[in-house]
């Protein structure tokens, strides 16, 4: 689950740049263009565009997948959508997903930024070692990270329970973060906090590298000049580092939010959405109604898929505006 932005995605948000050079386009060239486009177009149409339209089409049918396509007589119009609108489990899944996005982003971004600042200090020793170690969780699939934490947090056999028992005299078996609940709306199940923590732990290294890339773009001379002026590290941070990296920071933040929407693997591994439905998320909700169901409800799950795609698009589209703004600011600063 890598989440990456691309060079100039924001800058080009309004459309592709004009073609820098257009060598004489003969008939042969057009053939070449077609040939070059075909591999991508086939895959793109087959696995992105058609599925988008397909989801919308399926969502209008009461269809369980036992025919190769929905039958005309199973057309139900918008009924799947009205059912979803009235399903408290879906509401909870959306709420949990949003809570996850916000919490996970709020945890990982400041921490990764702080660490990145530390790891780009010239005086620090063993930089590579530290960077490697903090990046390490990224090599575990997030579902696998969930499984590992399930063992570590096991109330009876887990390390955390044993640790609390040894050092804080917490009775063994009473530390049950996956099934407990707290009164802190909208977070009731503590399992959600574990899901957030595991997600942040796993993805940490990636955002650390993002910030380090941003920090390396700050010209060294600025710091030297500030040092000569007698500015301490705090003032350098406030007046040089943060303003300089903030445009990229916006992109990183958007990435963080939008990609957190996809949370799935560790939820399945840690709580399977439970206890009950307490920690369910949208991606798992969709699969629970399709591939993880004994009787798939492909039509219904497709309606949820369409809503999910819209949610992601609103997140992305709404923030693309901010990116464009950030890019302008970035240009003003000349970085």
């Amino acid at each position: 689950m890598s989440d990456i932005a691309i060079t100039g995605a924001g800058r080009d948000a309004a459309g592709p740049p004009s073609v820098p050079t257009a060598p004489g386009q003969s008939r042969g060239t057009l053939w070449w263009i077609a040939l070059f486009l075909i591999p991508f177009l086939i895959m793109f149409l087959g696995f992105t565009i058609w599925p988008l339209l397909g989801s919308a089409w399926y969502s209008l049918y009461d269809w369980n997948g036992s025919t190769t396509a929905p039958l005309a007589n199973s057309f139900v119009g918008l009924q799947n959508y009205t059912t979803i609108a009235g399903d408290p489990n879906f509401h909870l899944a959306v709420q949990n997903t949003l809570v996850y996005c916000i919490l996970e982003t709020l945890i990982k971004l400041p921490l990764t930024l702080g660490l990145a600042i530390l790891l780009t200090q010239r005086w620090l020793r063993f930089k590579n070692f530290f960077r490697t170690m903090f990046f390490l969780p990224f090599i575990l699939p997030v579902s696998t990270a969930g499984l590992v934490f399930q063992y570590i947090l096991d109330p009876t056999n887990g390390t955390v329970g044993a640790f609390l028992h040894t050092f804080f005299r917490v009775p063994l078996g009473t530390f049950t973060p996956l099934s407990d609940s707290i009164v802190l709306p909208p977070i009731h199940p503590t399992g959600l906090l574990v899901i957030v923590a595991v997600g942040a732990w796993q993805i940490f290294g990636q955002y650390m590298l993002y910030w380090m890339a941003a920090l390396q773009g700050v010209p060294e001379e600025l710091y030297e000049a500030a040092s000569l002026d007698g500015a301490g590290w705090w003032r350098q941070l406030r007046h040089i580092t943060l303003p300089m990296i903030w445009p990229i920071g916006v992109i990183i933040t958007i990435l963080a939010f939008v990609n957190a929407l996809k949370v799935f693997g560790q939820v399945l591994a840690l709580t399977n959405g439970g206890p009950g439905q307490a920690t369910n998320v949208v991606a798992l909700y969709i699969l629970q109604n399709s591939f993880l169901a004994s009787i798939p409800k492909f039509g219904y799950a497709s309606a949820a898929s369409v809503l999910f795609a819209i949610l992601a698009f609103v997140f992305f589209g709404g923030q693309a505006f901010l990116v464009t703004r950030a890019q302008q600011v970035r240009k003003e600063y000349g970085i």
Partner: protein
Amino acid sequence: MAQRPVYDATIAAYEKLYPNVTVRWDTNPNQTAYYSGLTTQYSQNTLDDIFFYKTQTGDPTGTMQQLQQLGWIQPMQPAGDSTDIATFENTWKADAGVQPSFIDGINMQGGKPYSFPFTDTKAWGPGYFYWNKALFKKAGLDPNTPPATWSALMSDCATIKSKLSLPCFAMPMSPSNQLQRLWYALSGSTQSDLFFDYKTGSFDLSEPGIQEAFTQIQTMYNDGYIVPGLNTLAASRSQMIAGQAVMYTDGAWIPGQVFGPAGFNNYGVAATPAPDAGRTGALSQLPTQNVYWVNSKIATTHAEAAWKFIQYITQPDGIFVQTYLKDNFGTLAYANNAKYLGSNPQLATVLSLGETKGFRVANPVPLQQCPDLAQSQAFAKATNAISTTAEWDAIATALTSKSSLMAAATNIVNTRNNILTTTLATEAGGATPLKVSINCYKFPTWNYTQDFDQKYSPPK
């Protein structure tokens, strides 16, 4: 999986008998993946000629109806086959006159069987209590005396907790419908193990018996007698094998599939402890759903071979019966189980518990009361309209948040009941009216602890 040697032996013997036929046995340890896979396989024409299917809608008697609506099945006996179907049916003994093996609307239609009862329904099912004898002994309890009442259960658990520092009971809760493993066992001693109450003809979680069972589970949970955490089925079974839990409730298949030969003497099996005031309910016996169906898209030559194979494996003294029972994989509806069952003392106990009066009782079958229910969508709609696991979710939520079951459950059962009654009413008043009503599901004279004496219409 574990059962492969049984099928391999059977297939080898069969292929020797019919050298021009090749039989392949497919299996999948992941049940959900198996069922969702069937759907695709059918649409892709890759579904096996004979396939296992158990209702997934929550309607325990509607499997054949559901499969017919999907168009997946055809009679087991191919058209033009000359085998005397009566001979085939006579292999099965009706269960003490209460539940015949072949029932119109359940596994027969128009005098043609679509499936045959596979596992037996008296002994084979959920609701058994298992305990670790060595740990009982270690805790100073008699390893051969399982708790018979709920208060004995609580006091044994208290002893185990203080002597061994173990949480006593393994209970899976992730996903929430895994709670059925404990739920069936406990609610089956207070009422019936279904959320649908055949006495009142309604989905009901407010019944005193149901509430009593829930309170018992909640007390055990709050007192720390249940292994803490959000455990999966695999985790709970592992805890039992690893000696990290002392008691566990699950189906009759545990000795054969989980404990294995090595565990025959380490574990005991018994009926689940009963409420102190005595049992007011029993486990449900419904026409078996562990059955095989014949693919409707089967080729003619395959249909003949499939039918021959079905007749082959259902010979009461055939090689399949002998190997299946010898390896303790289950008890069969068409065999003398006691005769061939392997040397597993636990399964012997399971068999005798099944014979005990009032342990598992024949539940009413609404289809018998109203044959038109075979065309009704009402029950399937009621169980599918909201999440099929909603009741389990409510129980899990109530348990972990230490709250009452009623708050969440009222909504769920009201929704289901509404859909059931309104759909039945619509169907009864439609253009082609069905003779159905909510009364089809009501059996007010039935007692939860006794076999329902149904006047079964003999198969036509």
